[in-house]
């Protein structure tokens, strides 16, 4: 999957001997943060940025691969809708991860009928894969203000202050809401009336990550999925990817067109409000990076929203998680949780040196690793280059650590490594879409009737997200979008069509942009999916 430029490093056996020879000390060679990021972070590569020429963000920077999708041809035309079956609801939620589930459950609580359209199944999402935890400033030594400032600074001051303030203030009640639904959080000594276990995240000034062991996302999504599954006022349409939104004559969003994969037919859903909760874009493998993301993360929501006129932001900013697996090759990109570094595990190059403070923000640590690799100080094994995650030393210091870091043990086992004896080899992996659709505090976009929540949105994490703020984001804004959508004013005439698509195509033509390909792509390219072929609509006779 990875087409990245290959670098050479220090052979594994030599590097291992260097690691074992002494206790690694920080070598103090790291350049200043700005210089480091500009030189080594993938967002700053020459091939990582283009300018959008059409749409609400004309003139703004965007990743070139994403720009191609934003200006691509639509999957469907008017004629494809002839005879499509129609459904009607109050709120249509597109996306079955944590943000979508939180939005759907809240909309129902507010009295709305909800249809939830999921590309795969409910729960198949990046949420279920989240390991580390969720930020909430509950400690006596911590405050909402510190959470606010850490988040803004971690995001290079590019976040919207109002949204961040709202999210950090929501955090304790979001945790309470999740407990009310039956989610477990770790407490100190297991006392349910004691203090919550708090971990430290890179870039934070206090211990603030609440967790359920190191599979917090699984615990969270299990509970949300079950709550949605047994809620009679939510109709779930699993295996129904959204292929287009529907607009009325005033340009308002009044529903969406879904593709029913079982019956191989398009259906339309009309709703007074639509919530996009389609997640991120890791499976586009930007710049040839391996990814830690779920199979369905292909930027669909950005494409659909942009075509309808929604404004995006920071769509040239992505998060490369420092600790993806680099070896063995068939596991490249799989995530090793930040909880591992949070617990004190060190990063060591092929010379046996620590080259970065492991608890710096993720972009800094990732750039520092890429610097080691690019400058030949990485560790090379079977053609894969990375740096060591020094698990033997941390396990020697804290023999019970694998009981807390269950997933670390699992992944080491899959890598064929005994982590108490052998270090893992890691390399940054494409992990998160920092930018996305602009929203206000209620999850509203600039298109009436269209709401968004979760990774598909931008403005909260600025240009770099801190660990544990993604699970908070999806609950805080998922609930807010669900509530606001349930109370949205219905359109005057909610007969939906594709006029926004035609307008966008005219704009492309006017700007002289020759659009290539079709979008949303729905699945990664190795999913070999073409909806017309799937639906039996391709005529092979010319």
């Amino acid at each position, binding site marked *: 999957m990875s087409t990245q430029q290959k670098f050479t490093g220090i052979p594994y056996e030599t590097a291992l001997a260097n690691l074992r020879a002494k206790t690694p000390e920080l070598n103090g060679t790291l350049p200043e943060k700005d210089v480091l990021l500009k030189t080594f972070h993938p967002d700053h590569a020459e091939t990582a940025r283009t300018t959008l020429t059409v749409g609400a963000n004309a003139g703004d920077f965007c990743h070139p691969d994403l720009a191609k999708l934003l200006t691509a041809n639509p999957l469907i035309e008017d004629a494809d809708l002839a005879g499509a079956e129609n459904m009607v609801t109050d709120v249509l939620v597109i996306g079955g991860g944590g943000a979508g589930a939180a939005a759907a459950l809240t909309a129902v609580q507010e009295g709305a009928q909800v249809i939830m359209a999921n590309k*795969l*199944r409910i729960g*198949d999402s990046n949420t*279920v*894969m989240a390991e580390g935890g969720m930020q909430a*400033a*509950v400690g*006596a030594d911590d405050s*909402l*203000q510190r959470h*606010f*400032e850490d988040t803004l*600074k971690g995001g290079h001051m590019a976040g919207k*202050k109002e949204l961040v*303030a709202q999210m*950090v*203030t929501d955090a*304790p009640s979001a*945790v*309470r809401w999740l*407990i009310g*639904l*039956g989610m*477990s*959080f770790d*407490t100190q000594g297991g006392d*349910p*009336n*004691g*203090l919550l276990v708090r971990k430290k995240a890179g870039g934070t000034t206090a211990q603030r990550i609440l967790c359920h*062991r190191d*599979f917090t*996302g*699984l615990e969270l999504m*299990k*509970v949300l999925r*079950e*709550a949605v599954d*047994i809620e009679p006022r939510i109709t779930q349409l699993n*295996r129904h990817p959204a292929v287009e939104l529907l607009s009325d004559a005033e340009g308002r969003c009044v529903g969406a067109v879904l593709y029913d*994969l079982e019956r191989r037919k398009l259906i339309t859903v009309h709703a007074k409000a639509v919530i996009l909760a389609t997640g991120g874009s890791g499976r586009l493998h930007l710049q040839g990076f391996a990814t830690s993301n*779920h*199979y369905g993360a292909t930027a669909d929501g950005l494409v659909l929203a942009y075509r309808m006129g929604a404004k995006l932001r920071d769509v040239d900013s992505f998060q490369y998680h420092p600790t993806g697996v680099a070896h*063995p*090759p*068939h*596991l490249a990109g*799989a*995530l090793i949780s930040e909880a591992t570094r949070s617990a004190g595990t060190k990063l060591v190059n092929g010379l046996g040196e620590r080259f970065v403070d492991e608890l710096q923000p993720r972009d800094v640590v990732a750039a520092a690793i890429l610097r080691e690799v690019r400058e030949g100080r990485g560790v090379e094994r*079977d053609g894969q280059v990375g740096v060591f995650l020094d698990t033997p030393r941390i396990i020697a210091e804290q023999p019970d650590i694998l009981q807390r870091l*269950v*997933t670390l043990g*699992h992944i080491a086992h*899959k890598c064929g490594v005994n982590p108490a004896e052998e270090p893992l080899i890691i390399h940054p992996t494409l992990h998160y879409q920092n930018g996305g659709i602009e929203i206000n505090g209620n999850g509203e976009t600039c298109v009436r009737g269209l709401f968004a929540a979760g990774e598909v949105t931008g403005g909260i994490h600025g240009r770099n997200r801190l660990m544990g703020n993604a699970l908070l984001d999806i609950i805080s804004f998922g609930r807010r979008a669900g509530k606001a959508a349930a109370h949205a004013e219905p359109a005057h005439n909610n007969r939906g069509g594709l006029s926004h698509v035609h307008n966008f195509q005219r704009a492309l033509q006017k700007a002289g942009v020759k659009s290539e390909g079709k979008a949303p792509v729905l*699945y990664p390219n*190795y*999913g*070999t*999916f*073409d909806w017309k072929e799937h639906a039996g609509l391709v005529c092979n006779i010319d």
Partner: protein
Amino acid sequence: MSEEKYKLIIDGLEVEADKNDTIIQAYAKAGKAITANVGCMGQGVCGSCRCLVRKEGERSAETKLGCETKIEAGMQVSFLDYFLPTHVHHYDMNKVGDGWNWLEEVDETFPEAKNCRHCGGCDTACPKGLEVQNGVAQVVMGDFSTASTTFDECVMCNLCTLACPEHIRPNHLGLFARRMKAARTLRPIDLMRRLQEIDSGKVSVNIDAI
């Protein structure tokens, strides 16, 4: 890097893949449209890629998660599609009482659970090696703490539900117990204090302070 190749059958298609590939990676090389039975692609947490696997020369088939299982030459794999069960156990968390009537509530919501015939089908089906059958007994006995631990690492792949002849839906029963326990007993003191401070207006964020 050239690797040794294995041939295997996935959903009736002959596939050739690298010997270190997992079933899900080999599936991606089969060249057919992949729109289901795939999810986290390796982390083993979403439970989507459930499949029946028969190794060459063996008579019986095992249930596995495709993303966690390495391929072998001559292996036969069939993915198990998801379908809606005929009976879903509906309950309302808000109506579950204060905890004194948990035994009755379990019996009301999951009346089949006490009929477990100890066939062990659920244990055999579980790709995570959980002690599912014991977990069912623990919930029925009202030992929610032990049951919570038993089902902690469950990924809700529903294979035990498929295997259960009594329609108990063991994973959902386990999750019911876990949810009740957390919702009714988890009251962290630091969280309660912070909520009170926010609700009373004692703490807030000053967005101009930065």
